Protein backbone atom coordinates (compact mmCIF):
# COMPACT_ATOMS: atom_id res chain seq x y z
CA UNK A 1 0.00 0.00 0.00
CA UNK A 2 2.63 2.50 1.01
CA UNK A 3 4.19 3.86 -2.18
CA UNK A 4 7.62 5.38 -2.19
CA UNK A 5 7.52 9.15 -2.79
CA UNK A 6 8.99 10.23 -6.10
CA UNK A 7 10.80 13.23 -4.68
CA UNK A 8 12.35 14.25 -7.96
CA UNK A 9 8.90 14.64 -9.47
CA UNK A 10 7.54 16.29 -6.33
CA UNK A 11 10.29 18.89 -6.36
CA UNK A 12 9.05 19.98 -9.78
CA UNK A 13 5.67 20.79 -8.28
CA UNK A 14 7.21 23.47 -6.06
CA UNK A 15 8.13 26.58 -8.04
CA UNK A 16 10.31 28.04 -5.30
CA UNK A 17 12.67 25.07 -5.45
CA UNK A 18 13.67 26.26 -8.89
CA UNK A 19 14.90 29.55 -7.51
CA UNK A 20 18.61 29.76 -6.83
CA UNK A 21 20.09 31.47 -3.76
CA UNK A 22 23.48 33.09 -4.16
CA UNK A 23 24.25 30.80 -7.04
CA UNK A 24 23.23 27.63 -5.21
CA UNK A 25 20.05 25.65 -5.51
CA UNK A 26 17.61 26.24 -2.65
CA UNK A 27 17.92 23.54 -0.02
CA UNK A 28 14.90 24.29 2.08
CA UNK A 29 15.11 22.60 5.47
CA UNK A 30 12.75 24.78 7.47
CA UNK A 31 9.37 23.21 6.79
CA UNK A 32 8.62 22.92 10.49
CA UNK A 33 8.48 26.72 10.50
CA UNK A 34 6.50 26.91 7.27
CA UNK A 35 6.30 24.61 4.29
CA UNK A 36 6.58 25.60 0.65
CA UNK A 37 3.52 25.47 -1.64
CA UNK A 38 2.96 23.31 -4.70
CA UNK A 39 1.74 24.86 -7.93
CA UNK A 40 -1.63 23.17 -7.44
CA UNK A 41 -2.28 25.17 -4.28
CA UNK A 42 -1.25 28.46 -5.86
CA UNK A 43 -3.34 27.70 -8.93
CA UNK A 44 -6.42 26.86 -6.87
CA UNK A 45 -6.27 30.23 -5.14
CA UNK A 46 -5.56 32.20 -8.28
CA UNK A 47 -8.33 30.41 -10.12
CA UNK A 48 -10.69 31.18 -7.28
CA UNK A 49 -9.91 34.90 -7.44
CA UNK A 50 -9.94 34.97 -11.21
CA UNK A 51 -13.24 33.23 -11.69
CA UNK A 52 -15.56 33.26 -8.73
CA UNK A 53 -14.53 35.44 -5.81
CA UNK A 54 -17.36 36.91 -3.74
CA UNK A 55 -18.19 37.02 -0.09
CA UNK A 56 -19.61 33.75 1.21
CA UNK A 57 -22.88 32.76 2.87
CA UNK A 58 -24.68 35.86 1.76
CA UNK A 59 -25.05 36.26 -1.96
CA UNK A 60 -27.70 34.52 -4.03
CA UNK A 61 -25.93 35.25 -7.29
CA UNK A 62 -23.99 32.56 -9.11
CA UNK A 63 -20.38 33.46 -8.27
CA UNK A 64 -21.26 33.96 -4.59
CA UNK A 65 -22.93 30.56 -4.55
CA UNK A 66 -19.88 29.01 -6.12
CA UNK A 67 -17.57 30.78 -3.66
CA UNK A 68 -19.67 29.45 -0.79
CA UNK A 69 -19.65 25.98 -2.26
CA UNK A 70 -15.86 25.98 -2.64
CA UNK A 71 -15.40 27.32 0.86
CA UNK A 72 -17.62 24.69 2.45
CA UNK A 73 -16.14 21.99 0.25
CA UNK A 74 -12.73 22.88 1.70
CA UNK A 75 -14.17 22.44 5.17
CA UNK A 76 -15.45 19.00 4.21
CA UNK A 77 -12.04 18.08 2.77
CA UNK A 78 -10.33 19.03 6.01
CA UNK A 79 -12.90 17.08 8.00
CA UNK A 80 -12.24 13.98 5.93
CA UNK A 81 -8.46 14.47 6.15
CA UNK A 82 -8.42 14.46 9.94
CA UNK A 83 -11.17 11.88 10.38
CA UNK A 84 -13.67 14.34 11.85
CA UNK A 85 -17.16 12.88 11.99
CA UNK A 86 -18.66 15.94 10.28
CA UNK A 87 -17.67 19.36 8.95
CA UNK A 88 -19.79 20.97 11.67
CA UNK A 89 -16.92 20.64 14.12
CA UNK A 90 -14.36 22.15 11.74
CA UNK A 91 -13.83 25.84 12.53
CA UNK A 92 -11.61 27.95 10.32
CA UNK A 93 -9.23 30.18 12.25
CA UNK A 94 -6.33 32.34 11.12
CA UNK A 95 -3.71 29.90 12.40
CA UNK A 96 -3.43 27.23 15.06
CA UNK A 97 -2.55 29.88 17.61
CA UNK A 98 -5.97 31.43 17.25
CA UNK A 99 -7.55 28.00 17.56
CA UNK A 100 -5.85 27.36 20.90
CA UNK A 101 -6.79 30.84 22.11
CA UNK A 102 -10.36 30.07 21.11
CA UNK A 103 -10.36 27.05 23.39
CA UNK A 104 -8.62 28.90 26.22
CA UNK A 105 -10.86 31.94 26.04
CA UNK A 106 -14.20 30.42 25.11
CA UNK A 107 -14.09 26.99 26.73
CA UNK A 108 -11.72 28.18 29.41
CA UNK A 109 -13.70 31.15 30.64
CA UNK A 110 -16.89 29.11 30.67
CA UNK A 111 -15.44 26.12 32.46
CA UNK A 112 -12.48 27.20 34.57
CA UNK A 113 -12.66 28.79 38.01
CA UNK A 114 -9.86 30.21 40.15
CA UNK A 115 -7.75 27.35 41.43
CA UNK A 116 -8.77 24.94 38.67
CA UNK A 117 -5.84 23.13 37.11
CA UNK A 118 -4.76 22.75 33.49
CA UNK A 119 -2.06 20.25 32.59
CA UNK A 120 0.38 21.03 29.79
CA UNK A 121 3.85 19.69 28.97
CA UNK A 122 7.32 21.12 29.09
CA UNK A 123 7.76 20.63 25.36
CA UNK A 124 4.91 22.89 24.24
CA UNK A 125 5.20 25.63 21.65
CA UNK A 126 4.41 29.11 22.99
CA UNK A 127 1.09 28.82 21.16
CA UNK A 128 0.02 26.23 23.72
CA UNK A 129 1.58 27.99 26.70
CA UNK A 130 0.84 31.70 26.51
CA UNK A 131 -2.97 31.40 26.15
CA UNK A 132 -2.98 29.40 29.39
CA UNK A 133 -0.53 31.74 31.10
CA UNK A 134 -2.93 34.55 30.20
CA UNK A 135 -5.81 32.61 31.77
CA UNK A 136 -3.65 32.05 34.80
CA UNK A 137 -3.21 35.79 35.14
CA UNK A 138 -6.90 36.53 34.54
CA UNK A 139 -8.56 33.71 36.41
CA UNK A 140 -5.91 32.43 38.75
CA UNK A 141 -5.91 28.90 37.37
CA UNK A 142 -3.12 26.52 38.24
CA UNK A 143 -0.80 25.24 35.52
CA UNK A 144 0.94 21.90 35.77
CA UNK A 145 3.43 20.42 33.35
CA UNK A 146 4.31 16.91 32.29
CA UNK A 147 8.12 17.04 32.50
CA UNK A 148 10.61 16.20 29.83
CA UNK A 149 12.27 12.87 30.52
CA UNK A 150 14.96 10.83 28.79
CA UNK A 151 15.79 11.06 25.09
CA UNK A 152 13.32 13.81 24.33
CA UNK A 153 10.35 11.82 25.63
CA UNK A 154 7.82 13.03 28.15
CA UNK A 155 8.29 11.57 31.61
CA UNK A 156 4.94 9.97 32.34
CA UNK A 157 5.94 8.28 35.60
CA UNK A 158 3.95 10.84 37.56
CA UNK A 159 1.05 11.13 35.14
CA UNK A 160 -1.63 9.82 37.49
CA UNK A 161 -0.84 12.38 40.12
CA UNK A 162 -0.45 15.21 37.62
CA UNK A 163 -3.71 14.53 35.86
CA UNK A 164 -5.69 14.17 39.05
CA UNK A 165 -8.30 16.88 39.30
CA UNK A 166 -7.33 18.79 36.16
CA UNK A 167 -10.02 20.24 33.92
CA UNK A 168 -8.07 20.26 30.66
CA UNK A 169 -4.96 18.59 29.31
CA UNK A 170 -3.24 20.37 26.44
CA UNK A 171 -0.34 18.84 24.59
CA UNK A 172 1.45 18.81 21.29
CA UNK A 173 1.19 15.72 19.12
CA UNK A 174 4.66 16.38 17.76
CA UNK A 175 7.35 18.58 19.23
CA UNK A 176 8.55 21.23 16.80
CA UNK A 177 11.97 21.16 18.47
CA UNK A 178 12.68 17.53 19.25
CA UNK A 179 10.41 15.72 16.83
CA UNK A 180 9.03 13.80 19.80
CA UNK A 181 5.71 12.05 19.22
CA UNK A 182 4.18 11.87 22.68
CA UNK A 183 1.75 9.02 23.36
CA UNK A 184 -1.26 11.27 22.88
CA UNK A 185 -3.81 8.51 23.16
CA UNK A 186 -2.41 7.21 26.42
CA UNK A 187 -2.37 10.69 27.94
CA UNK A 188 -5.82 11.46 26.56
CA UNK A 189 -7.21 8.29 28.11
CA UNK A 190 -5.73 9.22 31.46
CA UNK A 191 -7.14 12.73 31.07
CA UNK A 192 -10.60 11.48 30.23
CA UNK A 193 -10.51 9.05 33.13
CA UNK A 194 -9.78 12.04 35.34
CA UNK A 195 -12.71 13.91 33.80
CA UNK A 196 -10.58 16.35 31.81
CA UNK A 197 -11.01 17.61 28.29
CA UNK A 198 -8.11 17.07 25.86
CA UNK A 199 -6.69 19.68 23.48
CA UNK A 200 -4.12 18.50 20.97
CA UNK A 201 -1.82 20.94 19.19
CA UNK A 202 -1.41 19.03 15.95
CA UNK A 203 0.37 21.80 14.05
CA UNK A 204 3.37 19.54 13.40
CA UNK A 205 1.47 16.28 13.37
CA UNK A 206 -1.21 16.71 10.73
CA UNK A 207 1.25 17.64 7.96
CA UNK A 208 3.30 14.51 8.50
CA UNK A 209 1.19 11.62 9.77
CA UNK A 210 -2.17 10.06 9.15
CA UNK A 211 -4.49 11.93 11.49
CA UNK A 212 -7.66 10.60 13.05
CA UNK A 213 -9.11 12.78 15.77
CA UNK A 214 -10.91 9.83 17.32
CA UNK A 215 -7.79 7.70 17.42
CA UNK A 216 -5.89 10.55 19.04
CA UNK A 217 -8.61 10.59 21.68
CA UNK A 218 -8.82 14.35 21.43
CA UNK A 219 -11.70 16.71 22.15
CA UNK A 220 -10.05 19.64 20.37
CA UNK A 221 -7.42 19.46 17.64
CA UNK A 222 -5.66 22.48 16.15
CA UNK A 223 -3.77 22.66 12.88
CA UNK A 224 -2.29 25.39 10.71
CA UNK A 225 -2.36 25.37 6.90
CA UNK A 226 0.99 26.96 6.13
CA UNK A 227 2.87 23.99 7.60
CA UNK A 228 1.01 21.49 5.41
CA UNK A 229 1.57 22.93 1.91
CA UNK A 230 -1.31 25.39 2.36
CA UNK A 231 -1.35 29.17 2.40
CA UNK A 232 -0.70 31.54 5.27
CA UNK A 233 -3.68 33.13 6.96
CA UNK A 234 -5.70 30.02 7.80
CA UNK A 235 -5.82 27.33 10.42
CA UNK A 236 -8.40 24.94 11.78
CA UNK A 237 -9.78 24.12 15.17
CA UNK A 238 -11.69 20.90 15.25
CA UNK A 239 -13.80 20.33 18.31
CA UNK A 240 -16.27 17.76 19.55
CA UNK A 241 -19.60 19.22 18.55
CA UNK A 242 -21.19 18.71 21.93
CA UNK A 243 -18.43 20.82 23.48
CA UNK A 244 -18.47 23.49 20.80
CA UNK A 245 -22.24 23.73 21.01
CA UNK A 246 -22.08 24.59 24.68
CA UNK A 247 -19.26 27.10 24.42
CA UNK A 248 -19.92 30.82 24.35
CA UNK A 249 -18.81 32.71 21.24
CA UNK A 250 -15.20 33.82 20.97
CA UNK A 251 -15.14 36.78 18.59
CA UNK A 252 -18.31 38.70 17.75
CA UNK A 253 -19.42 40.09 14.40
CA UNK A 254 -21.02 39.14 11.12
CA UNK A 255 -21.44 35.48 10.15
CA UNK A 256 -21.41 34.19 13.73
CA UNK A 257 -24.87 35.46 14.62
CA UNK A 258 -28.42 34.33 14.11
CA UNK A 259 -29.95 37.59 15.22
CA UNK A 260 -28.71 40.93 16.55
CA UNK A 261 -30.71 43.52 18.43
CA UNK A 262 -29.46 46.68 20.05
CA UNK A 263 -29.72 44.96 23.41
CA UNK A 264 -28.45 41.48 22.64
CA UNK A 265 -27.75 38.78 20.07
CA UNK A 266 -28.23 35.10 19.40
CA UNK A 267 -25.24 33.16 18.09
CA UNK A 268 -25.34 31.14 14.89
CA UNK A 269 -25.04 27.36 14.73
CA UNK A 270 -21.79 25.44 14.26
CA UNK A 271 -19.32 25.90 12.75
CA UNK A 272 -20.12 29.51 11.86
CA UNK A 273 -20.73 30.49 15.48
CA UNK A 274 -16.95 30.68 15.82
CA UNK A 275 -16.22 32.38 12.50
CA UNK A 276 -16.72 36.09 13.01
CA UNK A 277 -16.38 38.32 9.99
CA UNK A 278 -15.38 37.48 6.46
CA UNK A 279 -13.44 34.22 6.64
CA UNK A 280 -10.20 33.43 4.78
CA UNK A 281 -12.03 32.24 1.68
CA UNK A 282 -9.24 31.92 -0.89
CA UNK A 283 -7.08 30.47 1.87
CA UNK A 284 -9.66 27.78 2.58
CA UNK A 285 -9.67 26.91 -1.11
CA UNK A 286 -5.87 26.72 -0.99
CA UNK A 287 -5.96 24.53 2.09
CA UNK A 288 -8.44 22.25 0.33
CA UNK A 289 -6.01 21.91 -2.57
CA UNK A 290 -3.16 21.19 -0.16
CA UNK A 291 -5.19 18.43 1.45
CA UNK A 292 -5.88 17.01 -2.01
CA UNK A 293 -2.18 17.12 -2.85
CA UNK A 294 -1.20 15.35 0.35
CA UNK A 295 -3.95 12.79 -0.06
CA UNK A 296 -2.66 12.20 -3.56
CA UNK A 297 0.77 11.36 -2.18
CA UNK A 298 -0.76 9.30 0.60
CA UNK A 299 0.00 10.19 4.20
CA UNK A 300 1.44 6.73 4.88
CA UNK A 301 3.96 7.39 2.12
CA UNK A 302 4.68 10.87 3.45
CA UNK A 303 5.42 9.42 6.87
CA UNK A 304 7.49 6.53 5.50
CA UNK A 305 9.56 8.96 3.45
CA UNK A 306 10.22 11.12 6.48
CA UNK A 307 11.28 8.25 8.66
CA UNK A 308 13.71 7.15 5.97
CA UNK A 309 15.09 10.62 5.40
CA UNK A 310 15.38 11.34 9.11
CA UNK A 311 17.24 8.08 9.59
CA UNK A 312 19.62 9.08 6.82
CA UNK A 313 20.13 12.51 8.36
CA UNK A 314 20.79 11.21 11.86
CA UNK A 315 23.25 8.69 10.46
CA UNK A 316 25.01 11.12 8.14
CA UNK A 317 25.40 13.88 10.69
CA UNK A 318 26.65 11.55 13.37
CA UNK A 319 29.07 9.78 11.07
CA UNK A 320 30.48 12.97 9.61
CA UNK A 321 30.68 15.12 12.72
CA UNK A 322 30.91 12.72 15.64
CA UNK A 323 31.21 14.55 18.92
CA UNK A 324 31.09 17.91 17.18
CA UNK A 325 27.36 17.60 16.82
CA UNK A 326 24.74 17.04 19.51
CA UNK A 327 21.33 16.05 18.19
CA UNK A 328 18.39 16.62 20.50
CA UNK A 329 15.37 14.39 20.71
CA UNK A 330 14.67 10.69 20.22
CA UNK A 331 17.42 8.68 18.51
CA UNK A 332 15.05 6.21 16.87
CA UNK A 333 13.72 7.64 13.56
CA UNK A 334 10.46 5.72 13.85
CA UNK A 335 9.80 7.42 17.17
CA UNK A 336 10.07 10.98 15.93
CA UNK A 337 9.20 13.44 13.22
CA UNK A 338 11.55 14.82 10.62
CA UNK A 339 12.71 17.66 12.83
CA UNK A 340 16.39 17.59 13.70
CA UNK A 341 17.53 20.13 16.28
CA UNK A 342 21.23 20.18 16.88
CA UNK A 343 24.12 21.99 18.49
CA UNK A 344 27.25 22.18 16.40
CA UNK A 345 30.59 22.54 18.16
CA UNK A 346 30.39 25.55 20.40
CA UNK A 347 28.95 27.66 17.61
CA UNK A 348 25.86 29.68 18.08
CA UNK A 349 22.94 28.49 15.93
CA UNK A 350 22.56 31.96 14.47
CA UNK A 351 26.04 31.79 13.11
CA UNK A 352 25.56 28.26 11.85
CA UNK A 353 22.38 29.20 10.03
CA UNK A 354 23.98 32.32 8.59
CA UNK A 355 26.85 30.39 7.08
CA UNK A 356 24.62 27.58 5.83
CA UNK A 357 22.55 30.18 4.02
CA UNK A 358 25.65 31.19 2.10
CA UNK A 359 25.41 27.71 0.54
CA UNK A 360 21.69 27.86 -0.09
CA UNK A 361 20.84 25.71 2.92
CA UNK A 362 17.95 27.09 4.98
CA UNK A 363 17.73 25.97 8.60
CA UNK A 364 16.10 27.70 11.50
CA UNK A 365 18.13 29.05 14.42
CA UNK A 366 16.62 30.16 17.69
CA UNK A 367 14.31 29.07 20.45
CA UNK A 368 11.63 27.85 18.02
CA UNK A 369 8.94 29.46 20.15
CA UNK A 370 9.64 26.98 22.91
CA UNK A 371 11.70 28.92 25.44
CA UNK A 372 10.78 26.79 28.44
CA UNK A 373 11.94 23.70 26.58
CA UNK A 374 15.17 25.45 25.58
CA UNK A 375 15.85 26.25 29.26
CA UNK A 376 15.07 22.66 30.14
CA UNK A 377 17.56 21.45 27.51
CA UNK A 378 20.06 23.91 28.90
CA UNK A 379 20.57 25.72 25.62
CA UNK A 380 19.67 29.23 24.54
CA UNK A 381 18.91 28.20 21.02
CA UNK A 382 19.38 25.36 18.58
CA UNK A 383 19.78 25.03 14.85
CA UNK A 384 16.98 22.98 13.36
CA UNK A 385 16.73 21.20 10.04
CA UNK A 386 13.27 19.91 9.21
CA UNK A 387 12.13 17.80 6.29
CA UNK A 388 9.08 17.47 4.13
CA UNK A 389 7.90 15.72 1.00
CA UNK A 390 10.22 17.68 -1.30
CA UNK A 391 13.43 16.87 0.58
CA UNK A 392 15.78 14.05 -0.23
CA UNK A 393 19.18 12.65 0.68
CA UNK A 394 20.94 15.18 -1.53
CA UNK A 395 19.50 17.90 0.70
CA UNK A 396 20.91 16.21 3.77
CA UNK A 397 24.28 15.94 2.07
CA UNK A 398 24.15 19.63 1.21
CA UNK A 399 23.51 20.38 4.86
CA UNK A 400 26.49 18.29 5.94
CA UNK A 401 28.75 19.87 3.32
CA UNK A 402 27.74 23.34 4.42
CA UNK A 403 28.39 22.42 8.05
CA UNK A 404 31.95 21.58 7.02
CA UNK A 405 32.32 25.08 5.57
CA UNK A 406 30.95 26.53 8.80
CA UNK A 407 33.55 24.66 10.75
CA UNK A 408 36.25 26.09 8.53
CA UNK A 409 35.09 29.68 8.87
CA UNK A 410 35.06 29.68 12.66
CA UNK A 411 38.11 27.45 13.02
Amino acid at each position, binding site marked *: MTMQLDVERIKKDFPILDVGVRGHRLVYLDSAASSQKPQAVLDAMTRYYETTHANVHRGVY*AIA*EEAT*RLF*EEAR*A*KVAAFIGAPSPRGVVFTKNVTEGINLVAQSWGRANLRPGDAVLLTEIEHHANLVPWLMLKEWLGIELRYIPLGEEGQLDLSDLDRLVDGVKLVGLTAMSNVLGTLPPVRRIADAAHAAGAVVLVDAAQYVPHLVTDVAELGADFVGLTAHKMLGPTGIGVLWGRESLLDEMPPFLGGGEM*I*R*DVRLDGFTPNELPWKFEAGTPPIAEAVGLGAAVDYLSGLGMESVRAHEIELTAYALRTLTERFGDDIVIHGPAEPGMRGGVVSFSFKDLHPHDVSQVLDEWGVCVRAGHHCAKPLMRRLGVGATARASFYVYNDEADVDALADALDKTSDLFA
Partner: protein
Amino acid sequence: MPGLEDLYREIILDHYRNPRNRGELPSPPAYRVEGFNPLCGDEIVVYLDVSEDGRVVDLRISGQGCSISQSSASMMSSAVKGKTVDEARSLIRAFKAMMSIHEQRLDADGQPEDAVIEEPGVKLGDLEALQGVVKFPVRIKCATLSWNTLQQGLDEADQAAPSPA
Protein backbone atom coordinates in the same frame (compact mmCIF):
# COMPACT_ATOMS: atom_id res chain seq x y z
CA MET B 1 -26.92 26.07 -15.48
CA PRO B 2 -30.46 25.88 -14.09
CA GLY B 3 -32.80 28.57 -15.31
CA LEU B 4 -35.19 30.76 -13.38
CA GLU B 5 -38.14 28.73 -14.61
CA ASP B 6 -36.92 25.86 -12.43
CA LEU B 7 -37.19 28.12 -9.41
CA TYR B 8 -40.19 30.29 -10.02
CA ARG B 9 -42.84 27.77 -11.07
CA GLU B 10 -46.29 29.21 -11.60
CA ILE B 11 -47.72 27.54 -8.51
CA ILE B 12 -44.97 29.04 -6.37
CA LEU B 13 -45.70 32.50 -7.66
CA ASP B 14 -49.37 31.88 -6.99
CA HIS B 15 -48.80 30.98 -3.34
CA TYR B 16 -46.48 33.96 -3.06
CA ARG B 17 -49.07 36.36 -4.43
CA ASN B 18 -51.94 34.77 -2.51
CA PRO B 19 -50.56 33.26 0.65
CA ARG B 20 -52.87 30.82 2.42
CA ASN B 21 -53.44 30.79 6.17
CA ARG B 22 -51.76 34.10 6.72
CA GLY B 23 -52.35 35.63 10.15
CA GLU B 24 -52.03 34.95 13.83
CA LEU B 25 -53.72 32.85 16.48
CA PRO B 26 -54.15 33.87 20.11
CA SER B 27 -51.24 32.40 21.99
CA PRO B 28 -51.78 30.71 24.33
CA PRO B 29 -53.55 28.49 23.68
CA ALA B 30 -51.82 28.35 20.29
CA TYR B 31 -48.09 27.62 20.14
CA ARG B 32 -46.15 30.51 18.67
CA VAL B 33 -42.71 29.73 17.21
CA GLU B 34 -40.28 32.06 15.47
CA GLY B 35 -37.80 31.08 12.82
CA PHE B 36 -34.91 33.13 11.46
CA ASN B 37 -32.80 32.79 8.39
CA PRO B 38 -29.63 34.40 9.71
CA LEU B 39 -28.21 34.75 6.22
CA CYS B 40 -30.93 36.89 4.68
CA GLY B 41 -32.91 38.18 7.61
CA ASP B 42 -36.13 36.36 6.80
CA GLU B 43 -38.33 35.87 9.81
CA ILE B 44 -41.30 33.61 10.07
CA VAL B 45 -43.81 33.04 12.84
CA VAL B 46 -45.83 29.87 12.92
CA TYR B 47 -48.95 29.70 15.10
CA LEU B 48 -50.10 26.20 15.84
CA ASP B 49 -53.27 24.87 17.41
CA VAL B 50 -52.92 21.22 18.34
CA SER B 51 -55.97 19.40 19.65
CA GLU B 52 -55.95 17.01 22.60
CA ASP B 53 -56.01 14.05 20.26
CA GLY B 54 -52.90 15.27 18.45
CA ARG B 55 -54.28 16.96 15.38
CA VAL B 56 -53.17 20.27 13.87
CA VAL B 57 -56.54 21.91 13.92
CA ASP B 58 -55.33 25.34 12.91
CA LEU B 59 -52.12 26.91 11.72
CA ARG B 60 -51.26 30.47 10.73
CA ILE B 61 -48.19 32.09 9.26
CA SER B 62 -46.87 35.58 9.76
CA GLY B 63 -43.52 37.26 9.22
CA GLN B 64 -41.87 38.25 5.99
CA GLY B 65 -39.59 36.73 3.45
CA CYS B 66 -38.88 36.04 -0.15
CA SER B 67 -41.16 34.31 -2.63
CA ILE B 68 -39.59 30.95 -1.88
CA SER B 69 -39.90 31.10 1.88
CA GLN B 70 -43.38 32.62 1.71
CA SER B 71 -44.76 30.19 -0.82
CA SER B 72 -43.15 27.26 0.94
CA ALA B 73 -44.82 28.37 4.18
CA SER B 74 -48.12 28.86 2.44
CA MET B 75 -48.04 25.44 0.79
CA MET B 76 -46.95 23.90 4.06
CA SER B 77 -49.89 25.45 5.88
CA SER B 78 -52.34 24.01 3.37
CA ALA B 79 -50.71 20.62 3.48
CA VAL B 80 -50.48 20.34 7.25
CA LYS B 81 -53.73 21.84 8.41
CA GLY B 82 -56.05 19.15 9.64
CA LYS B 83 -53.37 16.48 9.65
CA THR B 84 -52.32 14.59 12.77
CA VAL B 85 -49.01 15.51 14.39
CA ASP B 86 -47.57 12.25 13.15
CA GLU B 87 -48.68 12.90 9.61
CA ALA B 88 -47.24 16.40 9.82
CA ARG B 89 -43.94 14.98 10.97
CA SER B 90 -43.68 12.59 8.09
CA LEU B 91 -44.52 15.40 5.73
CA ILE B 92 -41.66 17.41 7.24
CA ARG B 93 -39.33 14.46 6.77
CA ALA B 94 -40.43 13.95 3.20
CA PHE B 95 -40.04 17.63 2.36
CA LYS B 96 -36.62 17.87 3.96
CA ALA B 97 -35.59 14.70 2.18
CA MET B 98 -36.48 16.35 -1.11
CA MET B 99 -34.40 19.38 -0.13
CA SER B 100 -31.57 17.63 1.67
CA ILE B 101 -30.04 16.14 -1.44
CA HIS B 102 -28.51 19.46 -2.03
CA GLU B 103 -28.27 20.72 1.52
CA GLN B 104 -25.91 17.82 2.05
CA ARG B 105 -23.83 18.88 -0.90
CA LEU B 106 -23.19 22.20 0.77
CA ASP B 107 -21.75 20.43 3.75
CA ALA B 108 -19.86 17.53 2.23
CA ASP B 109 -18.03 16.97 -0.98
CA GLY B 110 -20.65 15.65 -3.27
CA GLN B 111 -21.34 12.46 -1.40
CA PRO B 112 -24.31 12.85 0.88
CA GLU B 113 -23.56 10.79 3.97
CA ASP B 114 -27.12 10.33 5.09
CA ALA B 115 -28.99 8.80 2.24
CA VAL B 116 -32.23 10.58 1.61
CA ILE B 117 -34.88 8.94 3.74
CA GLU B 118 -37.85 8.31 1.53
CA GLU B 119 -41.16 8.51 3.31
CA PRO B 120 -43.13 5.91 1.44
CA GLY B 121 -46.75 6.76 1.08
CA VAL B 122 -46.28 10.45 1.73
CA LYS B 123 -47.54 12.54 -1.18
CA LEU B 124 -45.94 15.95 -1.43
CA GLY B 125 -48.35 17.07 -4.13
CA ASP B 126 -48.01 20.76 -4.93
CA LEU B 127 -44.96 20.94 -2.74
CA GLU B 128 -43.02 19.11 -5.40
CA ALA B 129 -42.96 22.37 -7.29
CA LEU B 130 -40.31 23.45 -4.79
CA GLN B 131 -37.94 20.74 -5.96
CA GLY B 132 -36.35 23.21 -8.38
CA VAL B 133 -34.99 25.12 -5.38
CA VAL B 134 -32.48 22.33 -4.90
CA LYS B 135 -30.59 23.69 -7.89
CA PHE B 136 -30.14 27.02 -6.08
CA PRO B 137 -28.36 25.93 -2.90
CA VAL B 138 -28.53 29.29 -1.14
CA ARG B 139 -32.31 29.30 -1.45
CA ILE B 140 -32.76 25.91 0.19
CA LYS B 141 -32.74 27.54 3.59
CA CYS B 142 -35.52 29.83 2.39
CA ALA B 143 -37.62 26.82 1.44
CA THR B 144 -36.97 24.90 4.66
CA LEU B 145 -37.35 27.82 7.08
CA SER B 146 -41.05 27.37 7.74
CA TRP B 147 -40.67 23.60 7.98
CA ASN B 148 -37.98 23.81 10.61
CA THR B 149 -40.11 26.29 12.51
CA LEU B 150 -43.11 23.98 12.30
CA GLN B 151 -41.01 21.12 13.58
CA GLN B 152 -39.99 23.18 16.58
CA GLY B 153 -43.65 23.99 17.21
CA LEU B 154 -44.61 20.31 17.10
CA ASP B 155 -41.79 19.52 19.52
CA GLU B 156 -43.12 22.11 21.92
CA ALA B 157 -46.61 20.75 21.59
CA ASP B 158 -45.35 17.24 22.27
CA GLN B 159 -43.50 18.32 25.38
CA ALA B 160 -46.52 20.17 26.71
CA ALA B 161 -48.91 17.32 25.97
CA PRO B 162 -49.53 14.60 28.55
CA SER B 163 -47.30 11.70 27.58
CA PRO B 164 -49.18 9.26 25.33
CA ALA B 165 -50.48 6.19 27.08
